């Protein structure tokens, strides 16, 4: 079985489009229904199949731009026919709404040798 490796650059892509208002609740629904979670996790934590997306430093426009034209890899481009810009804005809003992770220092089992 071959693996997925989906890399999202951390640098924000210059956006020319206006920022849309995203619906985080609908974004969570779409994350599950459209299968974003399959590679990136239900809270955008990432894993072997996809990059971390929770609290992404991409702008909304950069996020949408990347989904439309990802860096050559195993993530296919998602066209407007399968996810509209508004739907991607909703997913973006959901990923931004995920609470920041618990600080490492507050999780003793991750810091103890």
């Amino acid at each position, binding site marked *: *079985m*071959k*693996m*997925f*490796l989906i890399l999202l650059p951390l640098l924000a892509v210059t956006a020319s489009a206006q920022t849309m208002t995203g619906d985080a609740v609908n974004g969570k629904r779409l994350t599950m*229904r*459209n*299968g974003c*979670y*399959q*590679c990136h*996790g*239900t*809270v*955008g*934590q*990432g*894993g*072997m*199949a*996809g990059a*971390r997306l*929770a609290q992404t430093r991409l702008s909304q426009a950069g996020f949408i731009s990347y989904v439309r034209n990802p860096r*050559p*890899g*195993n*993530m*296919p*481009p*998602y*066209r407007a*026919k*399968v*996810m509209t810009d508004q739907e991607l804005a909703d997913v973006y809003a959901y990923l931004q709404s995920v609470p920041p*992770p*618990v*600080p*490492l220092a507050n*999780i003793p*089992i*991750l*810091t*103890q*040798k």
Partner: protein
Amino acid sequence: MSKSKGSVGRRGFLRGAAASAAGLAATAVGAAQQPEPPATSEPRGAVEVTGNEKPGSDFMVDVLKTLDIEYCAANPGSSFRGLQESFINYGGNKSPEWLTCCHEESAAAMAHGYAKIEGKPMMIMVHANVGVQHASMAIFNCYADRVPLYIVLGNILDVNFRRNNAEWVHSVQDAASMVRDFVKWDDTPVTLGHFAESAVRAYKIAMTPPYEPVVIVADATLQEEPIKENIRIPKLAMSAPPQGDSAAVQEAARMLVAAQNPVIVTGRVARTPKGIDLLVQLAEAVQAPVKDQRLRMNFPSAHPLYADPGVLPLTPNVRGADVILALEVQDLYSITHQMTPLNRFGMESRPTTEPGAKIITVSAVELNHKSNNQDFGRYIEADLSITGDAEATLPELIEAVKRLTNSDRRRAMQERGAQIADAGRRWRQQHRELATVGWDASPISTARLSAELWAQIKNEDWSLVSWDRMVSSWPTRLWNFDKHYQFIGTHGGSGIGYGAPAAVGAALANRKHGRLSINIQNDGDLNYAPGVLWTAAHHKIPLLNIMHNNRSYHEERMYIQMFGAKFNRGIENGDIGTALGNPDIDYASIAKGYGLYAEGPITDPKNLAPAIRRAIERVKAGEPALLDVVTQPR
């Protein structure tokens, strides 16, 4: 051997009985449907069974006992009934001890896991031809993972010995042919003396690197007929593993010492615990990072020269290296090349190595390439290709590197080593930081699952008896692996259904050492042959099974979803044919039904630690346990 007057062997008895029945039937023709009882107390074709004769299967047991095999795993089959009876009653059911399996695939995969812990083969006994077909996928996994497996096939070659339809449909002309493509050697002995020689030879072949499965056919006639020959059992004379050519090894050492940024890539190097020590010596002598594919427990994960395994250790990044030493690596081409993404058409692979980078390969697998199975991977344009077992070749390579290293090179190497160690501190911290994302999520994150497990086993003598790729390699990224038995690599052939039985087999090997065996069990894998849980309970094999229950065949689910996007349609339908929900499978109930202690489904991460604690108590008391943990996909 002597034979009492009037007695016959089992075969003679069967022939006599058949002749007697035929005679009776002949006398009954035209008279009555029910044959008359014989007129005298001495019926025609009378036989006497003394029960004092040694059947051939007893001798076979004598032979197999010389091979120091601890266990024989089998699902019962009539073509080896004689041998099974001899193992139990004549052999005393020890060395080897019989293990009851619910599927031949479970038997072979148990042996797979056992061998990677114990370093020697388990025997499986398989019924030809139906049993071989059941076992074949797991045998293929052993072949692809270079694991020794000792297979005894029952068969009835002689048409005169087949008594009914079942024995006709279960008999074959060439019993080993079904698996010949992925075993190293097989033979069909026609006498007991032949069996003795081939059985000993088979063990020697299986245990000469590259390790692979072997097959001996135990013909039912030989099993069940009395011993008639004067036969002896040859002495087992093991071969030293093949070692790389000395001149080539010296050249490899010269290239490594002269390199500015050498990297050591390791696949199935450490066949034994000694292999770890040797790799540490080589890495320290060269001060080169070790990029480990994690196909065996090759290198201590806390060592300063252990390179970032990332989330996919199987395909490490070798960019920047000027010399790449590949030791028993699997699919090196996909490491030295960027392969065509699945979302593109055609083959567009391109090198990822630096221009002029040199590749050195050391592998024994080249000694036993097969034609039909293409597991040898793409052809490697190596600059120096050394055919030989890596572990056996390392001592000479280490000595040569030390001899060629002058003070200038030593100083440069030490500076390089310090940089690698600094990078190691950074990547370890980064992985811990990443583990915090989704820490409280439900389904439970695989990082949380792995961290909670580690917290409770790190002070035990533990052994992870499962591959960790499907949980994003979190144990590799967070745990401290330093002993050979703490990791057993992967399935080899990607044949799903390996996980659960391999874990049980590995746990069986760990049992006598008192180790705590941990299996992170994929849900899809368990559903192939879950009866192995019963085998674990029946034989009291301590094993903690933690379900990675993502309720799907998730790898394929991602593929379907990805192709839906690629072709611009239907990205919501990836669950069709891949999801394992509606209804959700209750693994705790399944495990309880097989006699295990079990809890779950566990969906709240806060409930995980107490459940692990309770389950470990049961495992430490000597029984298998299962926790059904509902997890994130990866």
